[in-house]
């Protein structure tokens, strides 16, 4: 009996083992190591991020630059088929665009919109959550009512509406960079609610604790108390929401682009590439849609797996 308990005893009672040792012995890391699937997901996510960052070094052409595209190279099949041609690893599309290069650059756009969207929605949600939780009263009711109402509508609908209105206000012909900004804005407005609810909840709990009262007593201003003391306590859940929302944001961007309400053909994201490729599905050029589709699916699946694992690891009760 007591023998069996020894490993647990030693691992938790070694003092000053350093943060790395502590991290390696932690429950979070334990569950990470135990799940091979999570490790694969982490590796794939990392790989896709690196590919996106290193796109200019790896791509055989810049797919955004029409001058580099040659129509004589159009509709070439992937390299390993009989009709394949070097250097077009995954074939080319209608305009002679190298599918592999387009995926690398498209990945960049998708990840940029996703990450910026998550940052924007996170910032908005955290801010509104802090305000609602800390001040309470009418502001709180107003913010939470809006959140309740918005939560009943799917994000994609809100994003589409924001997108449509933005197009109407700024005129239908937005350049690619402005479209990207609109997408980030639309995604941000669609996903803030969960952060706000989580942060508000913890603020309400923390607000009544002694250390906050003490901080108030010694005259720390409200924003310092919230940012320095209350916010750090909510970081775990926020990280989980952000990871899962990154996948959602990427899906939303891809969907908008697929529906023709997102990134234009001249600066395609993965969603745009799939929309373009979908037109060639019936004529047998499956590779134009298949590879961007696989890339998108791999990206989302890996991030979701990471998010799932993170949620379980930080909150074992949910398992």
């Amino acid at each position, binding site marked *: *009996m*007591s023998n*069996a*308990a020894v*490993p*647990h*005893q030693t691992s938790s009672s070694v003092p000053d083992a350093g943060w790395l040792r502590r991290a390696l012995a932690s429950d979070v890391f*334990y569950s990470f190591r135990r799940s091979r699937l999570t490790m694969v997901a982490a590796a794939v996510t990392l790989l896709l991020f690196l590919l996106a960052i290193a796109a200019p070094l790896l791509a055989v052409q810049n797919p955004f630059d029409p001058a580099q595209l040659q129509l004589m190279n159009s509709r070439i099949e992937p390299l390993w088929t009989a009709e394949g041609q070097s250097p077009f690893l995954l074939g080319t599309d209608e305009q002679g665009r190298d599918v592999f290069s387009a995926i690398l650059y498209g990945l960049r756009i998708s990840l940029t919109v996703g990450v910026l969207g998550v940052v924007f929605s996170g910032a908005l949600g955290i801010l509104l959550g802090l305000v609602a939780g800390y001040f309470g009263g009418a502001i709180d009711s107003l913010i939470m009512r809006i959140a309740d109402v918005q939560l009943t509508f799917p994000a994609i609908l809100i994003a589409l509406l924001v997108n449509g209105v933005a197009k109407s206000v700024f005129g239908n012909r937005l350049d690619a960079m402005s479209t990207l900004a609109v997408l980030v804005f639309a995604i941000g407005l669609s996903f803030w609610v969960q952060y706000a609810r989580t942060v508000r909840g913890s603020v309400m709990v923390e607000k009544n604790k002694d250390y906050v009262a003490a901080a108030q007593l010694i005259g720390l201003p409200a924003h310092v108390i919230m940012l320095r003391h209350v916010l750090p306590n909510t970081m775990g859940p926020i990280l989980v929401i952000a990871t899962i929302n990154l996948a959602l944001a990427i899906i939303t961007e891809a969907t908008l682009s697929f529906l023709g309400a997102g990134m234009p053909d001249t600066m395609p994201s993965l969603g745009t590439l799939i929309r373009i490729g979908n037109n060639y599905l019936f004529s047998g050029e499956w590779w134009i849609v298949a590879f961007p589709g696989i890339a998108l699916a791999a990206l989302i699946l890996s991030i979701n797996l990471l998010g799932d694992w993170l949620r379980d690891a930080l909150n074992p009760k949910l398992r």
Partner: protein
Amino acid sequence: MTEPVLSVHNLSVEFVTRHSVLRAIDGISFDIAKGEVLGVVGESGAGKSVTGLAVIGLIDPPGRLSGGEIYLSGLRIDNLPPEEMRRIRGKRIGMIFQDPLTSLNPLYKIGDQLVETIRTHSTLSESAARKRAIDLLAEVGIPAPDKRIDAYPHEFSGGMRQRVVIALAICAEPELIIADEPTTALDVSVQAQIIALIKRLGRDHGTAVMLVTHDMGVIAETSDRVAVMYSGRVAEIGPVRDVVQNPLHPYAKGLMGAIPTLAGNTERLVQIPGSMPRLSAIPPGCSFNPRCAFAFDRCRVERPEPMMHGTQAVACHLYDTPAKVSAA
């Protein structure tokens, strides 16, 4: 002497965790005779509830029975196939849990829950089962049972709900009732009624009762014999009067010293220093030795086995005589 209704020999229960195997129950033995009430007392985590669950066969993974035998009126039940054990549960062993608020399915009328249970263990028709259900509700003291039978659990008070739970536990006239902290979640005024009810039912039907509680007062009032548990072992077991008035095990002494008496002639209530060890850190030898005022070297290395001392069996080296306790 007739065969005991329940006989537990050297029972052990383990829980397998990520880090280790925790032994929640470590070789306990006791008997309960027909019509007898055995009180099982101890701190939280001493293994009282796990013992009850082990007897009725509801230890779920990661827990498992790792040793010993359990006999119900001579029939060995710890190794029965699940389906056979299921037929015994509710029919020959009834169980009452701590919290009547959560023990009843909120979406079913109490009559439906009673009828379902009765019909599971008998061949009664729907209407006969319903009649029996009304009789049972009357027996446990629910007023206007013919009307209340169609009420939902939330329409009853806590005490009334515990009566319904008891009716459910006794509906097949079991030989043994295991009551796991049946009064802990109830108001003090209701506690006495429920205790009286359990005692009366045991007497009227000759049912053996295993009453698990941390409340020595309840034990003293209800039980014929008492088992004092500490860290998954039985520290002392014997007739309730003897154990209360003349506890032998130092832990039992501390426990009895902690009961306030009406006479008020004790100068102060005794407090046992320290707390019960976690299951992952049970000390070698006697598990009570770090807190024991009388501990000597042997207590730190050798585990004491229960030994008869008068009417009581006690697991303590202070009373070491050659006469070892037998299953009787």
